[in-house]
């Protein structure tokens, strides 16, 4: 492979190449930046580039490697970071005019862990305003640049898909890692609540927010999670549980694992025929690999989105309380309306939702025990992506919208605090990616990664790379 094509490697292959001195971090970065230059006019994944510091960090990484000092699998690897995470000395605006000019004086814990692990941060990736998912960001889907790239971790998903990062950090409060993973054709992990620190991340909800990786393969995801996971005393929601060696556990395979399928809930009438076909086939392939597929009915899933919305609305508005009053006009109107709505959630309603959440969580735990489940499997989303002009994320009207369908399939992971992984399992007839989602027991990320890794040993959907067409105009 020529130096200019190094961006095509997986994170694991790049790490092995660096460790074996077959190429340098500086060469890896230049290939990545060249790819970024080719693709950014079409997809606009980054809001802030950090080329100067990235080149400096790559040289430092090479210097350390030459001295035999290896910081781990991310040493010298170019990565992207969602612009919702604090980066010391680098503009952090969360996609909002409200934060124009804000430059943090410290790093989010996850950013610090990336740096400690030797990662080379290429830049900050585009997010919906404050990750609320109400506006349409400038980023476009690389498989069809007329289409929505998913969100709110839009730039993180797209940068990984096109190869302008080997991995990227996203955040997920109701599906914001898994939605872009699914529609951009990459792997995205929403970890267990408390597994990865959210210190230094602009919050939405203190009990729903999570931070996680987007990568091209399950193996890459395991490597990245291993670097960013772990207890952090700065985050009151961080949980002190041992961090597994996720990559080392991948070869354990999937024989004997039991995954439940709730067809009434996950394959309801809004699931598109091609999504249904691809995901059913993938589930049969998992069964052929040794997974026991168990038909289940879990009524506790149905109310999850209503519970989550009440909590999310009130929590998010509380954090924005001062900003809404002092700078309300600077928000995108749709974001502002959601913040105003959150101010109208009554205290008793909020407590009722949190009580319902506790009851439903107990029922889900009992169901996992009753069916002896290791997880659930389902389509990540009911549909593939759609043209941006047809995108409906408006939650103010009645009926199913794109956002409400995303929440239907994804929000339960946040409401119950359990891990969830999306990985590619096919393409529609018009060339748009389809994702398969696996939910797991708390802190069992290893199981989800093993399932995706086993599937990727017998499929090649994750190896396909988009060549985004150049767009004439950009919405910014």
């Amino acid at each position, binding site marked *: 492979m020529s130096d200019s094509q190094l961006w095509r490697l997986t994170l694991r292959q790049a790490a092995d190449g660096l460790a074996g001195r077959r190429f340098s971090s500086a060469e890896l970065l230049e290939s990545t930046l060249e790819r970024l230059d080719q693709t950014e006019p079409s997809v606009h994944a980054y809001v802030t580039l950090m080329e100067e510091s990235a080149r400096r960090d790559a040289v430092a990484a090479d210097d350390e490697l030459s001295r035999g000092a290896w910081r781990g699998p991310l040493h010298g690897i170019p990565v992207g970071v969602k612009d919702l995470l604090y980066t010391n000395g680098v503009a952090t605006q969360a996609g909002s005019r409200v934060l124009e000019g804000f430059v943090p004086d410290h790093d989010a814990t996850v950013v610090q862990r990336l740096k400690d692990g030797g990662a080379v941060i290429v830049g900050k990736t585009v997010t919906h305003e404050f990750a609320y998912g109400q506006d349409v960001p400038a980023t476009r889907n690389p498989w069809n640049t007329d289409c929505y790239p998913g969100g709110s971790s839009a730039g993180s998903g797209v940068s990984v898909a096109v190869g302008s990062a080997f991995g990227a950090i996203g955040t997920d409060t109701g599906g914001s890692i898994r939605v872009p993973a699914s529609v951009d054709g990459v792997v995205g992990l929403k970890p267990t609540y408390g597994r990865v620190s959210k210190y230094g991340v602009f919050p939405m909800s203190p009990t729903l927010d999570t931070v996680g990786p987007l990568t091209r393969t399950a193996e890459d995801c395991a490597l990245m999670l291993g670097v960013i996971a772990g207890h952090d005393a700065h985050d009151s929601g961080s949980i002190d549980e041992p961090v597994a060696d996720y990559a080392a556990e991948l070869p354990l395979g999937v024989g004997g694992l039991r995954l439940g399928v709730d067809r009434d809930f996950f394959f309801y009438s809004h699931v598109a025929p091609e999504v249904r076909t691809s995901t059913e086939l993938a589930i049969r392939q998992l069964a052929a690999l040794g997974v026991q597929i168990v038909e289940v009915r879990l009524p506790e899933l149905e*109310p999850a989105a209503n*519970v989550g919305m*009440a909590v999310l609305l009130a929590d998010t508005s509380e954090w924005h309380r001062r900003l809404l009053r002092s700078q309300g006009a600077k928000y995108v109107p749709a974001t502002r*309306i959601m913040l*105003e709505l959150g101010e*109208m959630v009554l205290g008793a309603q909020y407590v009722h939702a949190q009580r319902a959440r506790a*009851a439903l969580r107990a029922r889900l735990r009992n169901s996992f025990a009753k069916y002896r489940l290791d997880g659930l499997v389902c389509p990540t989303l009911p549909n593939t992506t759609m043209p941006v002009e047809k995108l409906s994320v408006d*939650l103010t009207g009645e009926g199913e919208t794109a956002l409400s369908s995303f929440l239907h399939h994804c929000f339960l992971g946040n409401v119950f605090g359990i891990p969830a992984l999306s990985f590619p399992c096919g393409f529609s007839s018009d060339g748009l990616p389809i994702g398969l989602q696996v939910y797991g027991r708390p802190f069992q990320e290893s199981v989800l990664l093993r399932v995706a890794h086993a599937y990727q040993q017998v499929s090649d959907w994750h190896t396909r790379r988009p060549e985004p067409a150049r767009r004439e105009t950009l919405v910014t």
Partner: protein
Amino acid sequence: MNAKEVGPDVVRTLASVAGITIPEEDIEPLVGALRNHLAGMKALEELDLDEADPIVTFDPRWE
């Protein structure tokens, strides 16, 4: 309150109680959004929650 009973006046009253000033163009979408929220809360009324305490975090330890 029944979701269908929500109108602009209810939104304005709630905004006043919350202490926020809402731009006029936000009123109509907020009516729809508030109706959706109340419909969601109504659906939760049917759940049996006898065995559950709300999820809140309070740790009385000082260290």
